[in-house]
């Protein structure tokens, strides 16, 4: 995951340094991480939850987790914004699944995520890295990329995806597993 431009390299380093300081208990650094990333993480939580109030709750939870877990961030291994995005996505999906009406909500949410709108800004995240993920997803069979997106943003399981697409469970598993392997090969980072 090589950053593409000098400004992207600097932005990434600034965020990584701030996260490392948070790991040492520096609260001002947490405020900086928040200023640099809250719009991105709120966007992610809002996309998954589909509800502003709930997304705000999740974002609060995410930064509390960041405060507690930043010591685990390894700048040599993960891009800082990707590390944060993973916490935001997983927290939002957990919230989605804990909803009383969990069975219906994710399917609606999954319907609106197939668009390929580019992000509003690409200051912190690396535009090249992001473009590569989009290109790699688009390179998959349409049914595989659609299923992987629905699982990622909507929290759908194998069984729910199979039902959504009206295919046998084994078929859905094969699509997704094949898609995941292709994705990894395309991203070329492992």
């Amino acid at each position, binding site marked *: 995951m090589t950053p593409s431009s000098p400004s992207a390299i600097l932005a990434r380093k600034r965020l990584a340094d701030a996260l490392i300081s948070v790991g040492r208990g520096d609260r001002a650094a947490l405020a900086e991480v928040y200023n640099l990333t809250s719009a991105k993480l709120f966007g992610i939580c809002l996309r998954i939850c589909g509800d502003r109030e709930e997304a705000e709750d999740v974002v609060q939870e995410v*930064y509390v987790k960041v405060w507690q877990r930043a*010591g685990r961030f390894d700048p040599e291994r993960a891009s800082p914004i990707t590390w944060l995005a993973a916490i935001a996505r997983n927290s939002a999906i957990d919230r989605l699944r804990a909803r009383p009406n969990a069975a219906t909500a994710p399917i609606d949410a999954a319907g609106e995520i197939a668009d390929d709108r580019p992000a*509003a800004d690409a200051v912190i995240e690396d535009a090249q890295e992001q473009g590569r993920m989009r290109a790699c*997803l688009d390179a998959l069979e349409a049914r595989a990329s659609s299923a992987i997106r629905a699982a990622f943003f909507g929290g759908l*399981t194998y069984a729910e995806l199979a039902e959504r697409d009206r295919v046998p469970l084994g078929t859905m598993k094969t699509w997704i597993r094949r898609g*995941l392997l292709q994705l990894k090969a395309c991203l070329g980072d492992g």
Partner: protein
Amino acid sequence: MVDPMDLPDERELLAAELALGVLEGEALAAANRRLLTDAAFAEEVEAWRERLAGMALDVPDETPPDALWSRIERAIDGTGPAPVVDLVPRRQLRRWQFGTAAAGAVAAALAVLLVIPRPEPSIIPPPTQVVLQPAIVAQLRGEGEGPFVAARYDPATAQLRLVAQDMGEDPRVPELWIIPEDGIPRSLGVIRPAGDTQLVVAEGHRSMLHDGATLAITMEPRATAPHPAPTGPRVAAGKIFGI
């Protein structure tokens, strides 16, 4: 049609499936159990979580309300970064592997899987300390396809970490109990119905967390928790074992 089982590297695929969140039932329970014991698997799950998170960066930004930051500040007030109880601490693990290579003891290598990271990672205790202060783990299971919760306790910090598989719809909350030899359940607190919970075990209950004691989860009314005694149905239970 390619049989999924014929695809290369079953472990890698399982890690990817767990990170994506498509597993459920027994397959999910088995993958969560493996997280506790298989360091290489846990690393792959983490790598997949980060890889897949690239998808989230495409989502348009949205500015949160101004008040959110002060809410976050209030939420962390008086708390420092918690000593993280990691299922398989990665960075520590590498150092340990290096350190134990010289010792070459199989027992030490096993203990490596269960090392708890300390707040000051620069001070690496010798391997024997891990053997003296073993982590304690338990798997709490329900009937058949019921919920699965993996628990891990570090006696040194009194931190208990639980990873729960989705417990499904319920207006009540899961409450965790320790049941020692006398058979009387004591509440350890409420846990999240899905995902991670970390809690510090109250001083009076710490000595109860040992080999052979039972951890159990019941569904209880949210408003009044924690409770002096369970009232709701037991949804999962398991015995503690030390490693």
